[in-house]
């Protein structure tokens, strides 16, 4: 019964077999008070959890409530533990695992600066159209594209831009929400 245990931090966990690591997106509703983000990320660093992506913004100004979307990776046991540990923080209202609920959408936005002239410049613009990336700034020697989509789409676009003169990328990180009429408990 204990064979498939994945304790996170116990000194007695000496089995070296690595169970399957999954990537999950968690939505965390918090009071937007000073230090709340430090509490959340301090929990991750203090307990040795991973943060692959993090976005945060106040979503209800009158109630001072913020929504944090964290993409994290770990074994199913660790993910469950992360959720429980987050819920234990006093300013946290609720936590939803968007990946487990399955029925959710995640998006991120990236701004991609590409410099070049001639054929490379034309190719970059053509690819941008194929990816539905918008040109938000242009000079005779550069473009800045704005691309929105799932992480892998953004990744793929950036990869394609590398040989075409990629200079710089700014990404927002992942934001996520569940489909349907139901909202998250605030």
């Amino acid at each position, binding site marked *: *019964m204990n064979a498939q245990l994945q304790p996170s931090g116990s000194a007695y966990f000496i089995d070296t077999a690595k169970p399957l690591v999954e990537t999950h997106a968690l939505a965390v509703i918090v009071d937007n008070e000073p*230090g709340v983000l430090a509490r959340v990320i301090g929990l991750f660093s203090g307990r040795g959890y991973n943060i692959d992506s993090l976005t945060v913004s106040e979503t209800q100004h009158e109630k001072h409530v913020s929504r944090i979307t964290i993409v994290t990776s770990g074994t199913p046991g660790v993910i469950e533990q992360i959720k429980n540990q987050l819920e234990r923080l006093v300013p946290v209202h609720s936590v939803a695992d968007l990946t487990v609920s399955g029925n959710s959408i995640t998006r991120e936005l990236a701004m991609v600066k590409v410099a070049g002239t001639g054929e490379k410049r034309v190719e970059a613009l053509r690819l941008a159209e194929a990816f539905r990336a918008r040109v938000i700034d242009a000079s005779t020697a550069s473009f800045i594209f704005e691309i929105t989509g799932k992480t892998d789409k953004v990744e793929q676009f950036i990869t394609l831009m590398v040989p075409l003169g990629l200079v710089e990328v700014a990404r927002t990180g992942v934001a996520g929400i569940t489909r349907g009429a139901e909202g998250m408990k605030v």
Partner: protein
Amino acid sequence: MATVEMTGAEIVLKALQDQGVEHVFGYPGGAVLPIYDEIFQQEKVEHILVRHEQGATHAAEGYARSTGKCGVVLVTSGPGATNAVTGLTDALMDSIPMVCITGQVPTHLIGNDAFQECDTVGITRPCTKHNYLVKDVNDLARILHEAFYVATHGRPGPVVVDIPKDVQFAKGRYVGPKNIEHKTYRPRVKPEQDAIRAAVELIASAKRPILYTGGGVINSGVTASKLLRDFAAMTGIPVTSTLMGLGAYPASGKNWLGMLGMHGMYEANMAMHDCDVMINVGARFDDRITGRLNAFSPNSRKIHIDIDPSSINKTVRVDIPIVADVAHALEDMIRLWKSKSLSLDKKAMDHWWKQIEAWKARDCLRYKKNPDVIMPQYAIERLYALTKDRDTYITTEVGQHQMWAAQFYRFDEPNRWMTSGGLGTMGYGLPAAVGVQQAHPKSLVIDIAGDASVLMTMQEMSTAIQYELPIKIFILNNQYMGMVRQWQQLLHGNRLSHSYTEALPDFVKLAEAYGCVGIRATKPSELDAAIKEMIDTPRPVLFDCRVANLTNCFPMIPSGKAHNEMLMGEDVPDEEVGSAIDAKGKMLV
């Protein structure tokens, strides 16, 4: 609601009074002077001046643990706050309710590296349940009441309220504690009835059940201990407890197996290993308890009652989780058990108890008596025999003496045993005794100490003298950091690197220097009389009990081993001690 204008410092005192706080442990400094000025001008809240802020936090822990109330600490900014960090962490690990008010430099100086400034909320964020920096005096009263609410509700813990000096001077509105709760923090205390039903059915089907109880039973309150006793009595299930839970079920009770875990009883650990249904009541599968996880109680179905959902499935996967306060869960389980007139299979239980009796017959605490030298185990046995009929509270430091105290001192009531379990803080016991004695002025309060630990917070003897707190510091003096030495013997070829204290003070003279009483015992024959003298002395006592230097604490589950691979007491030859832990185990703490 009518509101009154007060200064921040007045609000602090008013809030403490409204929360029913009688005692505050603290140390003044520049950034809390306005609050100290208010303390001076009132009489409802008594302030106990400690000698070091760590002492204040441990005293508050002892106070809280022995009364069930919230401990309160008041310290200044910078070093005052950083010195309190050890005690805050200790309280977090052991779930002790505490509110710690820290002074802070004035708001306009925050972030300027001002004198005695530190980022208190930043430093204490991971070592508190929650913390606040008060920037507006009009939030102060609400935050203070909220701090008490958070500290005492759900899984208890320490809460820091950091108050800049200008906020202490500023005038603002006071609001009373009525209807104050946190806007979102609502810990679940009532169990889900489906889980209770499933648990009760599982227990009724058990053939080899065991109750594994922890500090959660103590934290839940006296009712929880009472219900635990009722449940054990009506079902006949054997009871073992963690270090933190001692006293919840009486050591004189007939279902008692003794403490479990690394230095727990053989019968308790064997029963944990072989049980078929484990009922974890307010414990958290700590690594000192489980031993090697993948060999931990391999054939049992597990029920886990815990108020903190993050404790469930953290290290050990359980079959029936019950998120609830222990008292509520036990109450519901007892009601259901009675209403269904359930009982356990008598034949199976007889068989189970017979097996337990056979394990008990190993007499795992047996040790070689010595007519010339006081064995540390003997010292605790005598201390227990001579104090058990009194109104006694025991605190400890951390190390071998702590384990011997847990093994040989027997607790029949909750809240009588104060020890640093999770963090393992050497120096906890003496200031904790100060706090306990302050809460129970007429009781006998004994700190069972080690010679190394006690020196870490020795200065609090001065506090005990000042406030006429007749605490008894019973030092098992073996001139070593005994547990460190034992591990060096186990793991490092008996190379005793820096575990021998070459220049210990003369504790009797030290006692005199502090103005208390020093007593020394060096032979078993003089021990009883010396202990009696200690008990009869109405002043603080430092008792220097010279014990055998190289005694090891047994039984023991060596690191990386399972419950049924215990190292037993007196017969272990030194070679076996040296090779008890294998290469994998050596990596562990």
